[in-house]
Protein backbone atom coordinates (compact mmCIF):
# COMPACT_ATOMS: atom_id res chain seq x y z
CA UNK A 1 0.00 0.00 0.00
CA UNK A 2 1.33 3.42 -0.87
CA UNK A 3 0.92 6.71 0.93
CA UNK A 4 -1.73 7.79 -1.54
CA UNK A 5 -3.69 4.74 -0.55
CA UNK A 6 -3.20 5.48 3.10
CA UNK A 7 -4.49 8.99 2.66
CA UNK A 8 -7.21 8.20 0.18
CA UNK A 9 -10.76 8.82 1.23
CA UNK A 10 -12.41 5.68 2.39
CA UNK A 11 -16.12 5.17 2.58
CA UNK A 12 -17.54 6.50 5.82
CA UNK A 13 -19.32 4.06 8.03
CA UNK A 14 -22.94 3.74 9.03
CA UNK A 15 -23.58 3.23 12.74
CA UNK A 16 -26.69 1.79 14.27
CA UNK A 17 -27.25 2.01 17.99
CA UNK A 18 -30.02 -0.33 18.85
CA UNK A 19 -31.73 -0.21 22.25
CA UNK A 20 -28.55 0.33 24.22
CA UNK A 21 -28.87 0.33 28.01
CA UNK A 22 -25.99 0.79 30.40
CA UNK A 23 -26.01 1.29 34.13
CA UNK A 24 -23.24 1.72 36.65
CA UNK A 25 -23.44 0.44 40.19
CA UNK A 26 -21.30 2.14 42.78
CA UNK A 27 -21.59 2.25 46.54
CA UNK A 28 -23.69 5.39 46.07
CA UNK A 29 -26.29 3.40 44.19
CA UNK A 30 -27.14 2.52 40.63
CA UNK A 31 -27.07 5.08 37.84
CA UNK A 32 -28.76 4.39 34.54
CA UNK A 33 -26.33 6.16 32.24
CA UNK A 34 -28.16 5.08 29.09
CA UNK A 35 -31.74 3.88 28.97
CA UNK A 36 -32.78 2.09 25.79
CA UNK A 37 -31.08 4.51 23.43
CA UNK A 38 -31.45 3.97 19.71
CA UNK A 39 -29.84 6.14 17.05
CA UNK A 40 -28.98 5.65 13.41
CA UNK A 41 -26.01 7.59 12.13
CA UNK A 42 -25.86 7.77 8.34
CA UNK A 43 -22.66 7.33 6.35
CA UNK A 44 -20.71 10.56 6.39
CA UNK A 45 -23.09 12.25 8.79
CA UNK A 46 -21.91 14.79 11.35
CA UNK A 47 -23.97 14.04 14.43
CA UNK A 48 -23.79 16.15 17.56
CA UNK A 49 -24.83 14.98 21.02
CA UNK A 50 -25.81 17.65 23.51
CA UNK A 51 -27.01 17.34 27.08
CA UNK A 52 -26.31 18.27 30.65
CA UNK A 53 -23.40 16.77 32.52
CA UNK A 54 -23.84 13.13 33.45
CA UNK A 55 -26.46 12.22 30.85
CA UNK A 56 -24.40 9.42 29.35
CA UNK A 57 -22.81 11.07 26.31
CA UNK A 58 -19.31 9.81 27.03
CA UNK A 59 -20.72 6.42 27.93
CA UNK A 60 -22.44 6.19 24.55
CA UNK A 61 -19.26 7.21 22.76
CA UNK A 62 -17.26 4.60 24.66
CA UNK A 63 -19.77 1.95 23.70
CA UNK A 64 -19.60 2.92 20.02
CA UNK A 65 -15.81 2.84 20.29
CA UNK A 66 -16.03 -0.69 21.68
CA UNK A 67 -14.28 0.29 24.91
CA UNK A 68 -17.38 -0.47 27.00
CA UNK A 69 -20.05 -3.06 26.48
CA UNK A 70 -23.73 -2.25 26.91
CA UNK A 71 -25.84 -4.15 29.44
CA UNK A 72 -28.35 -4.76 26.69
CA UNK A 73 -28.82 -3.67 23.11
CA UNK A 74 -26.12 -3.55 20.47
CA UNK A 75 -24.10 -1.32 18.21
CA UNK A 76 -23.60 -2.10 14.56
CA UNK A 77 -20.91 -0.54 12.43
CA UNK A 78 -21.70 -1.05 8.75
CA UNK A 79 -24.06 -3.81 9.76
CA UNK A 80 -21.49 -5.67 11.81
CA UNK A 81 -21.77 -5.99 15.54
CA UNK A 82 -19.18 -4.01 17.50
CA UNK A 83 -17.38 -6.29 19.94
CA UNK A 84 -14.27 -4.24 20.69
CA UNK A 85 -12.22 -1.30 19.56
CA UNK A 86 -11.31 -1.15 15.90
CA UNK A 87 -9.15 1.06 13.77
CA UNK A 88 -12.19 2.03 11.73
CA UNK A 89 -13.47 3.97 14.77
CA UNK A 90 -11.04 6.41 16.34
CA UNK A 91 -11.68 8.35 19.50
CA UNK A 92 -10.73 11.81 20.63
CA UNK A 93 -11.19 11.63 24.36
CA UNK A 94 -12.55 14.28 26.71
CA UNK A 95 -9.01 14.52 28.14
CA UNK A 96 -6.44 14.66 25.35
CA UNK A 97 -4.96 11.26 26.37
CA UNK A 98 -1.67 11.89 24.55
CA UNK A 99 1.29 9.79 25.66
CA UNK A 100 3.82 11.90 27.59
CA UNK A 101 6.69 9.51 26.87
CA UNK A 102 6.48 10.18 23.12
CA UNK A 103 7.03 13.43 21.27
CA UNK A 104 4.36 14.91 19.01
CA UNK A 105 5.34 12.89 15.96
CA UNK A 106 5.65 9.74 18.07
CA UNK A 107 2.10 10.21 19.29
CA UNK A 108 0.71 10.61 15.79
CA UNK A 109 2.77 7.62 14.66
CA UNK A 110 1.48 5.36 17.44
CA UNK A 111 -1.66 4.22 15.65
CA UNK A 112 0.05 4.19 12.26
CA UNK A 113 2.78 1.85 13.52
CA UNK A 114 0.04 -0.66 14.26
CA UNK A 115 -1.42 -0.35 10.81
CA UNK A 116 -0.21 -3.00 8.42
CA UNK A 117 0.64 -2.38 4.78
CA UNK A 118 2.88 0.65 5.24
CA UNK A 119 6.60 0.89 5.78
CA UNK A 120 8.05 3.24 8.35
CA UNK A 121 9.00 5.91 5.87
CA UNK A 122 5.48 6.00 4.51
CA UNK A 123 4.06 6.09 8.02
CA UNK A 124 6.20 9.09 8.82
CA UNK A 125 4.98 10.87 5.72
CA UNK A 126 1.37 10.16 6.60
CA UNK A 127 1.92 11.45 10.14
CA UNK A 128 3.55 14.61 8.82
CA UNK A 129 0.68 15.13 6.43
CA UNK A 130 -1.78 15.17 9.33
CA UNK A 131 0.42 17.33 11.53
CA UNK A 132 0.50 19.75 8.66
CA UNK A 133 -3.28 19.54 8.38
CA UNK A 134 -3.70 20.65 12.00
CA UNK A 135 -0.99 23.27 11.58
CA UNK A 136 1.65 21.73 13.82
CA UNK A 137 4.40 20.59 11.46
CA UNK A 138 6.84 22.87 13.25
CA UNK A 139 6.18 21.07 16.52
CA UNK A 140 6.74 17.48 15.45
CA UNK A 141 9.63 17.02 17.86
CA UNK A 142 8.12 18.94 20.75
CA UNK A 143 7.30 17.21 24.02
CA UNK A 144 3.64 17.04 24.93
CA UNK A 145 4.00 19.16 28.07
CA UNK A 146 5.45 21.96 25.99
CA UNK A 147 2.22 22.39 24.03
CA UNK A 148 -0.68 24.62 24.92
CA UNK A 149 -4.07 23.06 25.60
CA UNK A 150 -5.26 23.88 22.10
CA UNK A 151 -2.16 22.43 20.51
CA UNK A 152 -2.60 19.22 22.49
CA UNK A 153 -6.12 18.89 21.17
CA UNK A 154 -4.81 19.37 17.65
CA UNK A 155 -2.24 16.63 18.15
CA UNK A 156 -4.99 14.40 19.49
CA UNK A 157 -7.02 15.19 16.36
CA UNK A 158 -4.08 14.38 14.11
CA UNK A 159 -3.49 11.15 16.02
CA UNK A 160 -7.12 10.15 15.60
CA UNK A 161 -7.16 11.02 11.90
CA UNK A 162 -3.83 9.43 10.98
CA UNK A 163 -4.96 5.79 10.73
CA UNK A 164 -7.68 7.05 8.36
CA UNK A 165 -10.69 5.81 10.33
CA UNK A 166 -14.16 5.71 8.86
CA UNK A 167 -15.71 7.01 12.05
CA UNK A 168 -14.43 9.74 14.34
CA UNK A 169 -15.80 9.85 17.87
CA UNK A 170 -15.09 13.17 19.55
CA UNK A 171 -15.82 13.82 23.21
CA UNK A 172 -15.95 17.55 23.99
CA UNK A 173 -12.69 18.02 22.16
CA UNK A 174 -12.75 21.79 22.34
CA UNK A 175 -14.25 22.33 25.79
CA UNK A 176 -11.04 23.54 27.40
CA UNK A 177 -10.08 26.01 24.70
CA UNK A 178 -10.42 29.75 24.34
CA UNK A 179 -13.07 31.09 21.98
CA UNK A 180 -10.65 32.13 19.25
CA UNK A 181 -8.78 28.84 19.05
CA UNK A 182 -12.08 27.06 19.12
CA UNK A 183 -13.46 29.06 16.21
CA UNK A 184 -10.38 28.26 14.22
CA UNK A 185 -10.81 24.56 14.98
CA UNK A 186 -14.48 24.68 13.92
CA UNK A 187 -13.24 25.76 10.53
CA UNK A 188 -10.57 23.04 10.54
CA UNK A 189 -12.86 20.24 11.57
CA UNK A 190 -15.48 21.14 8.95
CA UNK A 191 -12.78 21.32 6.31
CA UNK A 192 -11.39 17.95 7.35
CA UNK A 193 -14.78 16.37 7.55
CA UNK A 194 -15.73 17.56 4.06
CA UNK A 195 -12.37 16.71 2.55
CA UNK A 196 -11.87 13.31 4.14
CA UNK A 197 -15.44 12.00 4.29
CA UNK A 198 -15.91 10.59 7.74
CA UNK A 199 -18.82 9.82 9.93
CA UNK A 200 -18.43 11.99 13.01
CA UNK A 201 -20.16 11.69 16.37
CA UNK A 202 -19.38 14.82 18.34
CA UNK A 203 -20.22 15.39 22.01
CA UNK A 204 -20.48 18.90 23.37
CA UNK A 205 -22.08 21.06 26.06
CA UNK A 206 -22.08 24.00 23.77
CA UNK A 207 -25.35 24.27 21.82
CA UNK A 208 -23.99 26.82 19.38
CA UNK A 209 -21.05 24.57 18.66
CA UNK A 210 -23.44 21.69 17.99
CA UNK A 211 -25.55 23.78 15.62
CA UNK A 212 -22.44 25.00 13.85
CA UNK A 213 -20.96 21.57 13.24
CA UNK A 214 -23.79 19.07 13.12
CA UNK A 215 -26.06 17.89 10.36
CA UNK A 216 -28.22 16.73 13.20
CA UNK A 217 -28.24 17.48 16.93
CA UNK A 218 -29.55 15.04 19.54
CA UNK A 219 -30.56 16.28 22.98
CA UNK A 220 -29.98 13.98 25.95
CA UNK A 221 -31.41 14.14 29.43
CA UNK A 222 -29.92 12.47 32.47
CA UNK A 223 -31.21 9.99 35.08
CA UNK A 224 -31.88 7.87 33.14
CA UNK A 225 -29.92 8.90 30.06
CA UNK A 226 -32.32 9.25 27.16
CA UNK A 227 -32.66 11.06 23.86
CA UNK A 228 -35.24 13.79 24.33
CA UNK A 229 -35.26 15.71 21.09
CA UNK A 230 -33.72 15.82 17.65
CA UNK A 231 -32.91 18.81 15.45
CA UNK A 232 -31.97 18.89 11.81
CA UNK A 233 -29.63 21.77 10.97
CA UNK A 234 -30.09 22.66 7.32
CA UNK A 235 -27.53 25.38 6.80
CA UNK A 236 -24.97 25.54 4.02
CA UNK A 237 -21.33 24.92 4.87
CA UNK A 238 -18.88 26.16 5.87
CA UNK A 239 -20.90 27.65 8.67
CA UNK A 240 -19.88 30.65 10.68
CA UNK A 241 -20.43 30.22 14.40
CA UNK A 242 -21.47 33.88 14.71
CA UNK A 243 -24.05 33.93 11.94
CA UNK A 244 -27.65 34.98 12.59
CA UNK A 245 -29.20 31.86 11.06
CA UNK A 246 -27.10 29.73 13.36
CA UNK A 247 -28.21 31.77 16.34
CA UNK A 248 -31.80 30.91 15.48
CA UNK A 249 -31.08 27.20 15.57
CA UNK A 250 -29.13 27.42 18.78
CA UNK A 251 -31.90 29.43 20.47
CA UNK A 252 -34.38 26.79 19.46
CA UNK A 253 -32.20 23.99 20.81
CA UNK A 254 -31.42 25.87 24.03
CA UNK A 255 -35.12 26.48 24.66
CA UNK A 256 -35.82 22.78 24.29
CA UNK A 257 -32.90 21.91 26.55
CA UNK A 258 -34.08 24.32 29.23
CA UNK A 259 -37.62 23.03 28.85
CA UNK A 260 -36.84 19.49 29.81
CA UNK A 261 -34.11 20.26 32.35
CA UNK A 262 -36.51 22.60 34.19
CA UNK A 263 -39.25 20.05 34.07
CA UNK A 264 -36.87 17.51 35.46
CA UNK A 265 -35.91 19.92 38.21
CA UNK A 266 -39.53 20.30 39.29
CA UNK A 267 -40.13 16.58 38.98
CA UNK A 268 -37.22 15.98 41.29
CA UNK A 269 -38.42 18.64 43.70
CA UNK A 270 -41.87 17.14 43.97
Amino acid sequence: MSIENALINIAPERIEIDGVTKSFTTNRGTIVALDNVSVKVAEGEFLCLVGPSGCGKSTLLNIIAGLDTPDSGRVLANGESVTGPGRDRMVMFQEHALFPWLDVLGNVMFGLRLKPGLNNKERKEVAKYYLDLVGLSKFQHANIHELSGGMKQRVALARALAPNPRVLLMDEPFAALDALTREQLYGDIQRIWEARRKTIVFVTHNVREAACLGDRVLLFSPNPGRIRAEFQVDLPRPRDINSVELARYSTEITTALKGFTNKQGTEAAE
Partner: protein
Amino acid sequence: MIRSLSSIVFFLTLLLAWEFVARSGHYSPVLLPSPLNVLEYIWQATCDGTLWVATLVTMKRLMLGYGLGLLFGIPLGLITARFRLLQDTLGLLALGVQTLPSVCWVPLALLWFGQTEAAMLFVVVMGTLWSVIIATNDGVRAMPPIYLRAARTMGSKGLHTWFKVILPASLPYLVGGMKQGWAFAWRSLMAAEIFVTILTGFGLGQLLQYGRELLAMDQVVAVMAIIVVIGLLADRLLFSPWERFFHRRWGTGSMK
Protein backbone atom coordinates in the same frame (compact mmCIF):
# COMPACT_ATOMS: atom_id res chain seq x y z
CA MET B 1 29.91 24.65 35.02
CA ILE B 2 28.71 26.64 38.02
CA ARG B 3 27.00 23.52 39.25
CA SER B 4 30.15 21.37 39.20
CA LEU B 5 32.03 24.27 40.76
CA SER B 6 29.63 24.46 43.68
CA SER B 7 29.92 20.69 44.13
CA ILE B 8 33.71 20.86 44.14
CA VAL B 9 33.81 23.76 46.62
CA PHE B 10 31.38 21.94 48.88
CA PHE B 11 33.36 18.71 48.98
CA LEU B 12 36.70 20.48 49.36
CA THR B 13 35.35 22.42 52.34
CA LEU B 14 34.10 19.21 53.84
CA LEU B 15 37.53 17.56 53.43
CA LEU B 16 39.31 20.59 54.86
CA ALA B 17 37.05 20.65 57.89
CA TRP B 18 37.72 16.97 58.43
CA GLU B 19 41.49 17.43 58.10
CA PHE B 20 41.28 20.33 60.55
CA VAL B 21 39.36 18.35 63.16
CA ALA B 22 41.71 15.37 62.74
CA ARG B 23 44.76 17.59 63.23
CA SER B 24 43.36 19.41 66.23
CA GLY B 25 44.40 16.42 68.30
CA HIS B 26 41.13 16.12 70.20
CA TYR B 27 40.55 12.65 68.89
CA SER B 28 42.89 9.74 68.74
CA PRO B 29 44.13 9.19 65.17
CA VAL B 30 43.25 5.54 65.61
CA LEU B 31 39.60 6.50 65.79
CA LEU B 32 39.63 9.47 63.45
CA PRO B 33 42.13 9.18 60.61
CA SER B 34 42.78 12.33 58.63
CA PRO B 35 41.81 12.49 54.95
CA LEU B 36 45.49 12.36 54.11
CA ASN B 37 45.88 9.05 55.98
CA VAL B 38 42.93 7.71 54.09
CA LEU B 39 44.32 8.87 50.75
CA GLU B 40 47.63 7.31 51.62
CA TYR B 41 45.91 4.02 52.32
CA ILE B 42 43.96 4.21 49.08
CA TRP B 43 47.15 4.93 47.12
CA GLN B 44 49.06 2.11 48.68
CA ALA B 45 46.20 -0.39 48.45
CA THR B 46 45.61 0.55 44.84
CA CYS B 47 49.27 0.01 44.04
CA ASP B 48 49.44 -3.41 45.67
CA GLY B 49 46.16 -4.35 43.99
CA THR B 50 44.09 -5.12 47.11
CA LEU B 51 41.58 -2.41 46.38
CA TRP B 52 41.15 -3.28 42.72
CA VAL B 53 40.55 -6.90 43.43
CA ALA B 54 38.14 -6.19 46.27
CA THR B 55 36.20 -3.67 44.21
CA LEU B 56 36.03 -6.04 41.27
CA VAL B 57 34.86 -8.95 43.41
CA THR B 58 32.19 -6.81 45.04
CA MET B 59 30.99 -5.27 41.76
CA LYS B 60 30.70 -8.71 40.20
CA ARG B 61 28.52 -9.89 43.05
CA LEU B 62 26.51 -6.70 43.04
CA MET B 63 25.84 -6.70 39.32
CA LEU B 64 24.85 -10.34 39.30
CA GLY B 65 22.48 -9.99 42.25
CA TYR B 66 21.09 -6.66 41.15
CA GLY B 67 20.68 -7.89 37.60
CA LEU B 68 18.78 -10.95 38.73
CA GLY B 69 16.66 -8.78 41.03
CA LEU B 70 15.68 -6.54 38.12
CA LEU B 71 15.26 -9.41 35.70
CA PHE B 72 12.64 -11.01 37.91
CA GLY B 73 11.43 -7.97 39.84
CA ILE B 74 10.29 -5.84 36.90
CA PRO B 75 8.18 -8.46 35.12
CA LEU B 76 6.72 -9.67 38.41
CA GLY B 77 5.89 -6.09 39.40
CA LEU B 78 4.22 -5.53 36.03
CA ILE B 79 1.97 -8.53 36.29
CA THR B 80 1.09 -8.13 39.96
CA ALA B 81 -0.20 -4.68 39.05
CA ARG B 82 -2.46 -6.00 36.30
CA PHE B 83 -3.96 -9.15 37.78
CA ARG B 84 -5.97 -8.96 40.96
CA LEU B 85 -5.14 -12.50 42.01
CA LEU B 86 -1.41 -11.82 41.84
CA GLN B 87 -1.88 -8.48 43.55
CA ASP B 88 -3.55 -10.18 46.48
CA THR B 89 -0.95 -12.94 46.71
CA LEU B 90 2.49 -12.13 45.36
CA GLY B 91 1.94 -8.41 45.78
CA LEU B 92 1.07 -8.81 49.43
CA LEU B 93 4.02 -11.11 49.99
CA ALA B 94 6.38 -8.58 48.39
CA LEU B 95 4.91 -5.78 50.47
CA GLY B 96 5.53 -7.70 53.66
CA VAL B 97 8.92 -9.20 52.87
CA GLN B 98 10.17 -5.87 51.56
CA THR B 99 10.05 -4.46 55.09
CA LEU B 100 12.68 -7.00 56.22
CA PRO B 101 16.07 -5.30 56.59
CA SER B 102 18.42 -7.18 54.30
CA VAL B 103 20.68 -8.37 57.15
CA CYS B 104 17.78 -10.53 58.28
CA TRP B 105 18.35 -12.78 55.27
CA VAL B 106 21.92 -13.57 56.30
CA PRO B 107 21.23 -16.26 58.95
CA LEU B 108 18.88 -18.04 56.59
CA ALA B 109 21.34 -17.83 53.72
CA LEU B 110 24.15 -19.19 55.91
CA LEU B 111 22.06 -22.14 57.03
CA TRP B 112 20.85 -22.96 53.54
CA PHE B 113 23.96 -22.33 51.51
CA GLY B 114 26.82 -22.26 54.01
CA GLN B 115 29.78 -19.94 53.53
CA THR B 116 29.42 -19.80 49.74
CA GLU B 117 28.93 -17.37 46.88
CA ALA B 118 25.40 -18.69 46.61
CA ALA B 119 24.62 -17.41 50.10
CA MET B 120 25.94 -14.02 49.10
CA LEU B 121 23.91 -13.96 45.92
CA PHE B 122 20.81 -15.07 47.74
CA VAL B 123 21.04 -12.19 50.21
CA VAL B 124 21.53 -9.62 47.44
CA VAL B 125 18.68 -10.94 45.33
CA MET B 126 16.33 -11.00 48.31
CA GLY B 127 17.40 -7.49 49.20
CA THR B 128 16.67 -6.20 45.71
CA LEU B 129 13.82 -8.23 44.30
CA TRP B 130 10.96 -7.25 46.57
CA SER B 131 11.53 -3.54 46.49
CA VAL B 132 11.75 -3.63 42.71
CA ILE B 133 8.49 -5.56 42.56
CA ILE B 134 6.80 -3.01 44.78
CA ALA B 135 8.12 0.00 42.89
CA THR B 136 7.16 -1.43 39.50
CA ASN B 137 3.76 -2.43 40.78
CA ASP B 138 3.13 1.05 42.17
CA GLY B 139 4.26 2.60 38.90
CA VAL B 140 1.86 0.58 36.79
CA ARG B 141 -1.02 1.19 39.15
CA ALA B 142 -0.41 4.93 39.09
CA MET B 143 -0.81 4.94 35.30
CA PRO B 144 -3.94 6.78 34.14
CA PRO B 145 -6.24 4.13 32.58
CA ILE B 146 -7.00 6.51 29.72
CA TYR B 147 -3.63 5.57 28.18
CA LEU B 148 -4.75 1.98 27.91
CA ARG B 149 -8.08 2.95 26.42
CA ALA B 150 -6.45 5.25 23.89
CA ALA B 151 -3.95 2.54 22.97
CA ARG B 152 -6.71 -0.02 22.53
CA THR B 153 -8.64 2.16 20.09
CA MET B 154 -5.49 2.43 18.01
CA GLY B 155 -5.19 -1.34 17.84
CA SER B 156 -2.62 -2.00 20.55
CA LYS B 157 -2.99 -5.24 22.43
CA GLY B 158 -1.06 -7.97 24.23
CA LEU B 159 2.69 -7.61 24.27
CA HIS B 160 2.54 -4.38 22.28
CA THR B 161 0.54 -2.77 25.08
CA TRP B 162 3.01 -4.05 27.66
CA PHE B 163 6.08 -2.79 25.89
CA LYS B 164 4.81 0.36 24.21
CA VAL B 165 2.33 1.66 26.77
CA ILE B 166 2.52 0.17 30.25
CA LEU B 167 6.30 0.02 30.49
CA PRO B 168 7.05 3.54 29.21
CA ALA B 169 4.10 5.01 31.11
CA SER B 170 5.54 3.74 34.37
CA LEU B 171 9.11 4.69 33.50
CA PRO B 172 9.44 7.39 36.18
CA TYR B 173 8.46 4.87 38.84
CA LEU B 174 10.60 2.17 37.26
CA VAL B 175 13.72 4.30 37.46
CA GLY B 176 12.83 5.18 41.03
CA GLY B 177 12.45 1.47 41.74
CA MET B 178 15.74 0.64 40.05
CA LYS B 179 17.50 3.27 42.13
CA GLN B 180 15.96 1.97 45.29
CA GLY B 181 16.80 -1.59 44.25
CA TRP B 182 20.40 -0.53 43.69
CA ALA B 183 20.61 0.99 47.16
CA PHE B 184 19.07 -2.12 48.67
CA ALA B 185 21.42 -4.38 46.74
CA TRP B 186 24.40 -2.49 48.15
CA ARG B 187 23.09 -2.68 51.67
CA SER B 188 22.44 -6.38 51.47
CA LEU B 189 25.74 -7.13 49.76
CA MET B 190 27.70 -5.31 52.45
CA ALA B 191 25.76 -7.18 55.11
CA ALA B 192 26.50 -10.42 53.33
CA GLU B 193 30.18 -9.68 52.83
CA ILE B 194 30.60 -8.74 56.46
CA PHE B 195 28.93 -11.87 57.74
CA VAL B 196 29.83 -14.45 55.13
CA THR B 197 33.53 -15.17 55.13
CA ILE B 198 34.51 -17.19 52.11
CA LEU B 199 37.65 -17.86 50.23
CA THR B 200 36.29 -17.45 46.72
CA GLY B 201 36.66 -13.71 46.81
CA PHE B 202 37.61 -10.91 49.09
CA GLY B 203 35.20 -7.99 48.61
CA LEU B 204 34.91 -4.46 49.90
CA GLY B 205 32.69 -5.53 52.79
CA GLN B 206 35.31 -8.02 53.93
CA LEU B 207 37.98 -5.36 53.59
CA LEU B 208 35.85 -3.14 55.79
CA GLN B 209 35.44 -5.88 58.37
CA TYR B 210 39.17 -6.66 58.47
CA GLY B 211 39.89 -2.98 58.85
CA ARG B 212 37.79 -3.01 61.97
CA GLU B 213 39.45 -6.12 63.31
CA LEU B 214 42.92 -4.66 62.71
CA LEU B 215 41.82 -1.29 64.08
CA ALA B 216 42.87 0.20 60.75
CA MET B 217 40.47 3.11 60.63
CA ASP B 218 42.06 4.55 57.50
CA GLN B 219 41.13 1.33 55.73
CA VAL B 220 37.59 1.42 57.09
CA VAL B 221 37.01 4.99 56.06
CA ALA B 222 38.65 4.42 52.67
CA VAL B 223 36.34 1.53 51.87
CA MET B 224 33.34 3.60 52.93
CA ALA B 225 34.51 6.43 50.69
CA ILE B 226 34.91 4.05 47.78
CA ILE B 227 31.40 2.71 48.28
CA VAL B 228 30.07 6.27 48.24
CA VAL B 229 31.98 7.07 45.06
CA ILE B 230 30.75 3.92 43.32
CA GLY B 231 27.21 4.82 44.37
CA LEU B 232 27.51 8.30 42.92
CA LEU B 233 29.06 6.98 39.70
CA ALA B 234 26.27 4.46 39.31
CA ASP B 235 23.73 7.19 39.79
CA ARG B 236 25.38 9.35 37.15
CA LEU B 237 25.91 6.58 34.62
CA LEU B 238 22.99 4.25 35.21
CA PHE B 239 20.10 6.37 36.38
CA SER B 240 20.69 10.02 35.53
CA PRO B 241 20.31 9.59 31.76
CA TRP B 242 16.89 7.99 32.27
CA GLU B 243 15.86 10.63 34.73
CA ARG B 244 16.94 13.40 32.40
CA PHE B 245 14.99 11.75 29.62
CA PHE B 246 11.73 11.50 31.47
CA HIS B 247 12.04 14.87 33.16
CA ARG B 248 12.43 16.38 29.71
CA ARG B 249 9.56 14.40 28.23
CA TRP B 250 7.11 14.70 31.12
CA GLY B 251 8.16 18.22 31.98
CA THR B 252 8.78 17.28 35.60
CA GLY B 253 11.73 17.80 37.91
CA SER B 254 11.58 21.57 38.24
CA MET B 255 14.54 22.92 40.15
CA LYS B 256 15.78 26.40 40.87
